[in-house]
């Protein structure tokens, strides 16, 4: 029974994957492909955000990593003609370095919970302000346009945007794969123990700082790459769309509304929010400017109130509740044993 259901799940996943690969060929319009590409990119970002978030390391400043990755890469390309494929690694390393410094300081001084969220929020805003203050290089609030080379795959620029569709799908799959790998490793158990009770975890001999640093740096590095992907796709960078408080909160919204404790949660949350945003914008945005965002905000608040565990989390919980009679499902399943 168990085996057949796991085979069924794998078959379903394979089927969905084939549909996604085929999709651009049968897509009704480039607009739909564009929206789905955006969903892939933001799903990737919110998935790597949830690497930390699900262990109680709630960062409200992932915009900092997004912005640093994207800006370092774009500036290296614009000024030194360095290919974004290489620049991406440098940009993401810069984001990882910031995460390492910030993370070490936070974990060394035992900054957790609300305080960690507020520190990261401030760092996100700091990054946005620094980008604006360095306006001679970065273009400040006016933003920065990436030099257009036409079709230059070696420079991460494609004349046909469909390549970005596949590229971002690839990155999303990688993020999901890494999630599963983390889940199977010792790291998952250690971080889960830390997330539940730090003092207890350190008493059992878990090196708290080491594990927290590892996951924070990984998440920041991959977020930096996500920033590059997004910037290369849009070919325009702006501190407000990459680094401000708004972006950082938007990433959390996506992961939490989907359910950040589940593998598919961030992806489902992103799909839901991006489609909602686009639907409201297309159907009401032209009539009154701003009213679509009001509706969007109200929808977000209602979703948080009525689906506190996220869409996927809530659905999963009700299903498990029906079949097995126990609430929570995956979240509290295994005892923490090292």
């Amino acid at each position, binding site marked *: 029974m168990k085996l057949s259901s796991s085979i069924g799940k794998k078959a379903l996943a394979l089927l969905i994957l084939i549909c996604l690969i085929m999709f651009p060929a049968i897509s009704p319009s480039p607009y739909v492909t564009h929206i789905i590409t955006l969903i892939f990119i933001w799903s990737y970002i919110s998935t790597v955000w949830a690497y930390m978030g699900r262990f109680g390391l709630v960062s409200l400043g992932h915009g900092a990593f997004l912005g640093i990755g994207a800006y370092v890469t774009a500036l290296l390309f614009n000024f030194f003609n360095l290919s974004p494929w290489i620049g991406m690694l440098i940009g993401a390393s810069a984001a990882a370095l910031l995460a390492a410094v910030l993370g070490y300081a936070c974990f060394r001084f035992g900054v957790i919970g609300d305080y960690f969220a507020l520190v990261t929020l401030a760092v996100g805003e700091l990054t946005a302000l620094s980008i604006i*203050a360095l306006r001679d290089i970065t273009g400040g609030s006016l933003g920065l346009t990436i030099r257009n080379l036409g079709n230059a795959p070696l420079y991460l620029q494609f004349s046909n945007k469909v390549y970005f569709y596949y590229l971002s799908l690839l990155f999303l799959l990688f993020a999901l794969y890494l999630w599963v790998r983390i889940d199977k490793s010792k790291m998952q158990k250690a971080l889960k123990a830390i997330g539940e009770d730090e003092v207890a975890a350190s008493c059992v001999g878990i090196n708290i700082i080491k594990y927290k640093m590892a996951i924070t740096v990984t998440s920041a590095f991959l977020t930096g790459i996500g920033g590059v992907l997004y910037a290369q796709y849009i070919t325009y960078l702006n501190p407000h769309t990459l680094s401000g408080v708004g972006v950082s909160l938007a990433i959390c919204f996506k992961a939490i509304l989907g359910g950040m404790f589940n593998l598919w949660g961030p992806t489902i949350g992103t799909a839901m929010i991006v489609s909602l945003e686009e639907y409201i914008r297309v159907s009401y945005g032209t009539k009154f400017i701003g009213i679509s965002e009001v509706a969007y905000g109200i929808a977000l608040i209602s979703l948080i109130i009525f689906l506190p565990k996220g869409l996927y989390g809530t659905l999963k919980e009700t299903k498990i509740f029906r079949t097995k009679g126990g609430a929570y499902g995956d979240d509290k399943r295994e005892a923490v044993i090292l």
Partner: protein
Amino acid sequence: MLEQLINAAINGILLGGVLALLAFGLNLIFGVVKIIHMAYGQFVMLGFYLIYVLTVQLHVPIILSSLITICAMAVLGILTQLLVIEPLLNAPRLNQLLALAGLIIVFENLAMVIWGADYRGIPLSLPILKFGNVYIRCSYLIAFLGALVTLSLLYLFLHKTYVGLAIRATAQDVEIAKIMGVNSRRIYFVTLAAGGALTGIVAAFFAPIYTVHPHFGSSFTIIAFIIVVLGGMGNLLGGFISAFIVGIVTSVAAVLTTVEVADIITLLIFVLVMLVRPQGLLGVRGAS
């Protein structure tokens, strides 16, 4: 240069008074309801617009329109408690935070729909006082004195009335307060109403100083946060003192460098304080 710095420092102190008032509401809400009110600055923005509509468009005298605004903001506070905070009282902290962050999106865009993106100010010219080489704007002085009076009234309210006692008890320990017969639900409503009214008062004092636009509030939310954290979350005296520190630092740094660098410096101080003394400058470790 020195004169400029002294001027900036004095303006900073005067501004600090209003900032203390601003942070007081956020601190009170955090202390009592244990919730971080992300959309607090947006309340100030809405209050500002309300005063603008009443004085400029409907020609109501400014004192009267300020009083109406204060009442309206108290009602808005109650509505926020009823519709957003109360359903989430037992939810994870992050959900509370994000729901209130959702309010930012709603309020800012609502202002955008109604009033557009233009800067709007209240035409009210107040004289500039001159003491030796120091210039003081009358609007700053009124705001400072008004803020001090309001803060003293709040102190009396919290320490001399029954409701104030109940609020303090709820802030200390909500379970024990309930056992002592405090209706905590009503106290939460009173706190949010007081917090809302405070944003109305802040908006009234800001009215002659600033011009308002839909994104006016976000910077004040961040400043209020910084002040509250510097002083120690829930510590009202600490908040009062750190408001003056932040006021002086921002206005002096803005004179020495640019406005953005001044903001960056304030945020850096905030991050450092969070790392080294998360209990705040005046806080006691383990008190929270």
